[in-house]
């Protein structure tokens, strides 16, 4: 028995050595850390889809691996470090909660390049990137106000962080441009991915008379509830039409692939530089899924709104923006709020009756 074990161990060692040796040849190794499972059909699913597109586009110039379901707690730092130690030279950490862990590992490995999604801490070897999802939210607000009969929208939130809050505000501002008296009910699921909780929140909103649902959580649960209840909903992160063939109006699709391809190429060419990218509809990082289940006039209005945001003639946070308490928000961007104000948004706009969490 002991001899057998020794042979087995030796065989394993030999195999390991050959495998490692073969993969070391000149390919750029790219690592990804996902918050959820790759099958969430939302946030992590889109990042994984983009990784696969990158693999297809760059062929044998790259090799990639991912770790899914990585907890934003103490495990994150080890997971990132493990990717680096496995030889990855470009690492994408795809959730805000990985920020401090990414910063720590990046500091230890100055010759490895890091890309952190939705964060704000950068270094010479650490870039940040994100999408202007609020642009898509504004369009959704316009559509929702047109489609709602009850005049009450339902919103499943994850955490009251600026990104989610700016999404809610953009939705309401878009909706108010159609119906100034639109109402919204918000339920915080307090999770990014928990289909059970998300579904419960969606059901509660539907029970309270909301007839258009939107969500800032990662699974298609809310879409499925909307389909069951014969009301409308917007998808999140990916095109969720197969979960709501009669319910989905459109979906904000995160289109990371072009960015991943571009950054991997830059890393291969040696032109990679630390940067902060915040792309929207215009740069194609945020894409609207086809406008479905709506009359032609609503679809035309949605397309018009999308075009206006793209050409810059419409900014979702155009001044004046009135806060919930009636005060006018300082207009730091000239004709609209500036990026800093959007990135740190922690107030509701006028027209939202809910209390801002923690205030």
């Amino acid at each position, binding site marked *: 028995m002991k001899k057998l074990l020794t042979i087995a161990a030796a065989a394993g060692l030999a195999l390991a050595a050959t495998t490692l040796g073969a993969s070391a040849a000149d390919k750029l190794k790219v690592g990804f850390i996902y918050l959820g499972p790759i099958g969430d059909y939302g946030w992590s699913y889109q990042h994984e889809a983009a990784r696969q597109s990158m693999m297809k586009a760059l062929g044998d110039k790259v090799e990639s691996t991912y770790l*899914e379901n990585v907890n934003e*707690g103490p495990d994150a730092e*080890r997971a990132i470090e*493990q990717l680096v130690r496995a030889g990855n030279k470009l690492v994408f950490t795809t959730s805000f*909660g990985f920020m401090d862990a990414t910063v720590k590992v990046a500091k230890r490995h100055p010759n490895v390049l890091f890309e952190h999604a939705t964060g704000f801490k950068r270094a010479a070897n650490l870039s940040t990137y994100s999408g202007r999802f609020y642009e898509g939210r504004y369009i959704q607000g316009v559509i929702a106000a047109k489609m709602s009969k009850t005049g009450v929208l339902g919103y499943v939130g994850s955490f009251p*962080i600026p990104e989610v809050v700016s999404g809610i505000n953009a939705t309401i501002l878009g909706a108010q441009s159609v119906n100034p008296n639109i109402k919204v009910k918000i339920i915080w699921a307090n999770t990014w991915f928990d289909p059970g909780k998300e579904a419960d929140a969606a059901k509660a909103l539907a029970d309270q008379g909301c007839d258009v649902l939107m969500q800032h959580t990662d699974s298609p649960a809310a879409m499925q509830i909307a389909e069951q209840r014969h009301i409308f909903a917007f998808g999140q992160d990916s095109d969720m039409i197969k979960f709501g063939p009669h319910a989905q109006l459109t979906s904000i699709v995160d289109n990371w692939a072009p960015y991943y391809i571009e950054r991997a190429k830059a890393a291969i060419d040696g032109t990679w530089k630390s940067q902060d990218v915040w792309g929207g509809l215009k740069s194609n990082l945020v894409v609207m899924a086809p406008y479905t289940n709506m009359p032609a006039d609503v679809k035309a209005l949605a397309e018009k709104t999308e075009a206006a945001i793209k050409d810059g003639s419409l900014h979702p946070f155009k001044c004046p923006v009135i806060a919930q308490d009636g005060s006018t928000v300082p207009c730091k961007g000239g004709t609209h709020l500036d990026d800093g104000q959007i990135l740190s948004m922690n107030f509701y706009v006028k027209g939202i009756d809910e209390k801002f969490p923690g205030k």
Partner: protein
Amino acid sequence: MPLVLERRQERSAAIAVISPLLAIALTFATMAVVFAAIGKNPLYALYVYFVEPLTDGYTLSELVVKATPLVMIGVGLALCYIANVWNIGAEGQFTIGAVAGSWIAVATNGTNAGHWVLPAMLAAGTVAGALYAMIPAICKVRFGASEILTSLMLVYVADFFMDYLVRGPWRDPHGMNFPTTADFDPVATVPTLFDGSRVHAGSIAALIVVMLAAVILGRTIKGFEIRLVGAAPRAARFAGFNANQLVVFTFAISGALAGLAGIIEVAGPIGHLQPGISPGYGFTAIIVAFLGRLNPVGVLIAGLFLALTFIGGESAQIALKVPLDLTKVIQGILLFYVLACDSLIVYRVRFIAPQPRAATGSA
């Protein structure tokens, strides 16, 4: 030739030692089949899972970091389970310990508090964990409530209590509304032992806990009481031991250890209080306790082994491109075999030769 399980006259001491090793061997064998079935070289896969992490200083240090809370909780649970007391709620006691200790860290955050902060936090976490664990214990001895249910349900109470705190009164005012407290001050942080690794003083505390528990169990009256109440409750009553007091005592001890593990984890590798501080440590520690044969030193080994499955699981995701779910499958298979092999301690397998039918048929 039918197989029967036959009760042994005595527990088999030899099998008690072999059983966990047999379980691990069977797990390896089963995993080899699973790896082969999904088209991975089974030898290489087992190497990546169970050997590679041991060949590198960094992964070894992470192994210790991961095993520390598992061992600390597992030792406490082992004391409970030996006495036939079923604390399933260590996860909740872990959380409450983390919350109680964090209270001091949050209250002193940004002040020039001295070096008393960390000891006070550790003490608060330990005491809170013990008190929280005594709720199901007292419910059991006073009202006869099943401690399995009450201790498990209190896990969710603890989770939501922490949720409330980090989303409400304790939320970091500069944290962009994320549900987390501010980072703890240096005086409220468990120091690391080496530069460049996350191994912290808590690991030494875990070792001390293992040694103390081994001494208490093996060499003190209390340890004798725990073992006797578990093995022969009637005899223990005649010996004058009070089983109810022991329920409260073992719950308090295991709660204290879980609470201590909680505050160490929060003040150590995490550095602030946030939801998701535990990836199920309190539940995984139940596996650790049984895999370690409810023996403190065994728990230490089992804790390290289970940590190895986590770290190896990550290596395997990277090197073999297998899903995370496979790690959970491994842990499940392991627990299954541990329990199955344990039945061999009390039972023996016998083959029964078929009786000739003719003898009865002739009448």
